[in-house]
């Protein structure tokens, strides 16, 4: 009986923590995925929005986003930057981290993105983590999810 108020308090604390995450979305807009390229003075990484970079890299891996990727909140996943879009009607979130240990920890954080979906998968390649979720039950055998994660793992 005493659990409910405690849970509410915990959720309130979580929500207060999340609010800056919402602000973070605007702040992190256009963050380059690769710092090294920006340092070298290459305009591509710095000028191209992060979401566009993610979309391009997924296309290079053989995936065709069915909805444009957009910048997403990164703080809930403790990432440097995140972009969210759709591939084959699957909800896809790609996040980049500063280092591999952070990305490894980020895999666990991205479970909350998959939460609520019937099926989903999370894969990490270096400092980039991809989470794919089937929220609309469009992939009853997991074939589309498998295609996305395999292309991501082999494509980057």
């Amino acid at each position, binding site marked *: 009986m005493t659990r409910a108020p405690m849970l*509410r308090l915990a959720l*309130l604390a*979580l*929500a207060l923590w*999340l609010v800056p995450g919402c602000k973070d979305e605007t702040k992190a807009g256009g963050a380059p995925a690769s710092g090294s390229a920006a340092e070298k003075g290459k305009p591509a990484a710095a000028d191209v929005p992060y979401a566009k970079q993610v979309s391009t890299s997924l296309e290079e891996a053989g995936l065709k986003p069915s909805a444009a990727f957009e910048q997403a909140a990164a703080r809930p996943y403790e990432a440097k930057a995140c972009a969210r879009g759709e591939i084959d009607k699957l909800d896809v979130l790609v996040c980049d981290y500063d280092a591999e240990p952070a990305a490894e920890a980020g895999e666990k954080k991205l479970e909350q993105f998959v*939460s609520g979906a019937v*099926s*989903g998968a*999370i894969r990490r390649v270096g400092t980039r983590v991809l989470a794919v979720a089937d929220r609309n039950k469009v992939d009853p*055998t997991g074939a589309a999810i498998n295609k996305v994660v395999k292309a991501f793992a082999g494509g980057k």
Partner: protein
Amino acid sequence: MAKHVACVVVLWALLVGPTDARADIVHYIHPHPMPPGVGQGMCHIEGPHIHSFRPAKPVLYVEVEGQYAFIGDPTEFEPKARKYAYYGHHPVFWVDAPGEVEHYCYITGPHYHLYAPPPELKFTAKGGVYWYVGAHPGWYRKRYKKYRPVDRYYASVRIARPVVTVEPPEGFVGVYIGAGGRARVHGHVGGGVHIVPPPPPGIDVNIHLPGVGVVFGGAPVPHRRGVIVHKRRGPPRHAPAWGHRGRGPYKVKYKVKGKRKGKWK
């Protein structure tokens, strides 16, 4: 402004929404059957993945680092799935780390799995079936108790099984039939896939194990694809039955009583 509204909505959803958001995260690894009502056939996601549901038949899974791993025969769930035929017990190599044997398939007789064995494990392909001819681990018999439900499950379920028409290869360790007893095992010659049939008038194979007790013989009990085991008393145990492994020189005699008439396919 829109973002502030979105934040407020998220706040509200968190406060009034489900308190245990992680309850719908169930970890799986490798393909597995989809439960009825959620999907059909097998889930084809390779590697680790997440679902919102638990296995419909937990007996067919082992838990590996918090993930459900399917160790059963996929035929029941997706008859047309690409699969490989096995006979007898063997390591569950697709679940274990390379070089380690922690899980075992205790499905007696012929069955299918989704994976072909890796070259580093001692499997022999004979008659279109993989036979494990390597040494069983020390815990092989002990853990059978743990996995017995899987074996019992496949003893009861009626599904298409590989047809085995050859004698086991050298080094194969089959099911222990009993000590000093006599086992009558009916098989048949044929090809392709066969649904568990009635007792066939095909080959009648008698296996004599002199001087080591009796387990089989008596009333027939349907057991596996086309195999009728006559059980008289005592629980079945597992030990060398074919070949010349383990204790003592077993004399295995195959006696063919008649040719297949072609009706039982």
